[in-house]
């Protein structure tokens, strides 16, 4: 197992290198000229633009620039300087932006997957009935709805009409002003507590599965574990004094999450349903039914668990896809994350920043794939760790 991971890591490094180079050239070949912004002011002499280009290092031959860039990236982890906010390091931008994007999108994916999972389970068992059709049609329609359009509609409805959520941004300035609290630390804090909570839950579930035989007791333990984690989280935040700030951010995440969840749940719901339908036809389910075990148990215990596998992998793989849609969501909701940074970078021709954020997306995608592969092999003992077998898509 360890050897496999090591081999994959090496492959990943190669892929990142290739990827970053390709990306670099895509941007370099373009007409993007970061000094173009200064054209509009007639008081600024054209030589100033030339000087600026020199300063940005734009007048060196392309292969030298590329070599320089690659060397900086891999050896010093220096992604260069942003050209639109010269000379601020690109790394700076990424560090401050990625927690915001991650917090929003991971939460949204979790919720949409949970929704999809439950609904998928539900309708797989009701094949052909009205609820099946309704859920499917709703899910698919929302899946194909035009995102910005839907987002605007929900903003209008929730933030304006009902007024229960704020309009855009990710925090309420009046609340934060003067307190000296930095949103960056709050986001990191949220991510850490989220990770801690999920680790704790995972541990609880795993131990229960292993050691507790009695099903009823197992269920009680699982639910109480979930409850304890949740209460622990809330109390922890309140005690730390940052409770209001975390709450503020969560409140601002309301409409974006509703938007994302409604759009995305269709995918996981249908996947779950299909996956369950396949397993339902498997022999051991028929046997279970024949033995007289209740439908619900068959559904939850047998079918669901095997069907869980593609769902888990698809969840991990959904993260990079969701990030890809980040640009649209972030611009509509004024959520200053990596997506918005990327958009701004390509609009101003700031290609170090663009390449930096783009590579970051890629890195997340590659990591997600690796994690998905590992989990897949972990959960399904039928798969071995060889190359060919892993490509079961």
């Amino acid at each position, binding site marked *: 197992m360890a050897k496999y991971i090591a081999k994959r890591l090496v*492959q990943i490094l190669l*892929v990142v290198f*290739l*990827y970053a180079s390709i*990306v670099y050239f*895509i*941007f370099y*070949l*373009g*007409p*993007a000229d970061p000094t173009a912004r200064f054209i509009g002011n007639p008081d600024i002499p054209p030589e100033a633009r030339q000087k600026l280009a020199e300063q940005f290092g734009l007048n060196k031959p392309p292969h030298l620039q590329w070599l320089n860039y690659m060397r900086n990236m891999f050896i010093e982890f220096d992604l260069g300087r942003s050209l639109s906010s010269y000379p601020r390091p690109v790394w700076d931008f990424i560090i401050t932006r990625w927690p915001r994007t991650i917090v929003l999108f991971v939460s949204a994916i979790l919720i949409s997957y949970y929704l999809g999972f439950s609904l998928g389970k539900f309708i797989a068992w009701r*094949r*052909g009935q009205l609820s099946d*059709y309704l859920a*499917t*049609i709703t899910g*698919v*329609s929302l*899946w*194909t*709805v*035009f*995102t*910005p*359009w839907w987002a*605007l*509609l929900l903003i*209008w409805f929730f933030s*304006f009409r009902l007024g229960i959520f704020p309009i855009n941004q990710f925090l309420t300035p009046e609340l934060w002003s003067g307190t000296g609290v930095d949103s960056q630390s709050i986001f990191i804090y949220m991510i850490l507590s989220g990770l801690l909570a999920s680790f704790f839950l995972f541990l609880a579930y795993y131990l229960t599965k292993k050691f507790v035989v009695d099903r009823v007791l197992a269920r009680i333990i699982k639910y109480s574990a979930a409850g304890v984690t949740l209460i622990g989280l809330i109390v922890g935040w309140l005690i730390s004094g940052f409770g209001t700030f975390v709450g503020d951010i969560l409140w601002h995440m309301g409409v974006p999450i509703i938007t994302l969840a409604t759009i995305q749940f269709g995918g996981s719901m*249908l996947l779950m349903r*299909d996956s369950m*339908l*396949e397993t339902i*036809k498997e022999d051991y389910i028929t046997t279970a039914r024949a033995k007289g075990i209740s439908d619900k148990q068959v559904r939850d215990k047998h079918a669901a668990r095997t069907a869980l596998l593609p769902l888990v992998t698809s969840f991990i793989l959904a993260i*990079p*896809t969701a*990030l*890809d*849609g980040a*640009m*649209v969501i972030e*611009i509509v909701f004024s959520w200053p994350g990596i*997506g918005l940074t*990327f*958009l701004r970078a*390509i*609009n101003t*021709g700031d290609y170090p920043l*663009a390449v930096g954020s*783009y590579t970051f*997306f*890629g890195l997340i*995608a*590659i990591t997600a*794939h690796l994690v998905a592969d590992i989990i897949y092999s972990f959960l399904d003992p039928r798969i071995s760790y060889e*190359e060919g077998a892993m*490509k*079961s*898509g």
Partner: protein
Amino acid sequence: MDNEKKRDFEELQQPLWRVRLRLFRKSFRENWSIFKGSVLGPIGLGIVIFFAIFAIFYPFYVNIMGSVSGRPSMYEPVTGFAFDIAGTHPHSPTLHHPLGTDPLGRDILTQLMFSASNEFILGLVAAVGGIFIATTLGAISAYYGGLVDTALMRVADIFMVFPFVATIAALSQVVYEMTLFRLALIIAVLSGFGGNVIMLKSGALQVKVKPYIEAAKVAGGSNLYIIFSHIIPNVLPLSFLYMMFAVTGAIFTEATLAFLGLLDVRMSWGIMIQTANDAGYLVGSRLGTFWYLWIPAGLAITFLCAGFYFIGRGLNEVVNPKLRER
């Protein structure tokens, strides 16, 4: 009994293409009934056919409305102008402008129909191109295995990693003029080398192990012949399935990019929404008043995408027998 033998013999004498045609028609009929039974499939087909008719109807609409109103120049999607309306634009629907006018005074229904054909072309070029590449690569990868397989899978890995919309957004700045056609080609290449290859490869693998492939090899068929005449045709149902999803993706991507202002296209459904949004008509209560600026275009995108997606779901039942009703 002699007659039977004679008939069988005659049947065997028939040219190969006739036999194939008969088999094709038979399986088509079978598949069609499965498709019909999937409910989603026929709905999707219906939607797509509706839009096709919608797009074809465009020149008729322009001509009819032109002669009815006496001013054909009003019905141009980009440089039209509704002179007959006294009020300000955008204007709510009138007799001569069934869906009203956009902020620049152009007839919305004209724009909708004009864009429909563009969206079809975009979707089909992107999807057919992409899936063609993916199918060929998948078949080659499955057939040859070994080094070729590994190499292609690595390439697919890299392509899968590229964030789709972000890449095209970046390319939109690079490409001199990002027209719909170029966009379609870019989408085709990006999706053709990516994840679809893996899916289609597993489909090709299933075909590869069938006995008639061995038979063809024994009979002396060259590799290329086997790939293109036997493997790929049998993977086609799967290809067709993915093509549907690819169309959805292409149309959706175009609309998103148009909304972000990254395309140099003069008219498309995405551009219609973007025009309305940038001009400020999609704010607050305006969403209700100016419904005709965004609902028709948004619904068109949604429905056409859904249409192809539904067809895909229907085809999924044809291709994947386990999903059918017992």
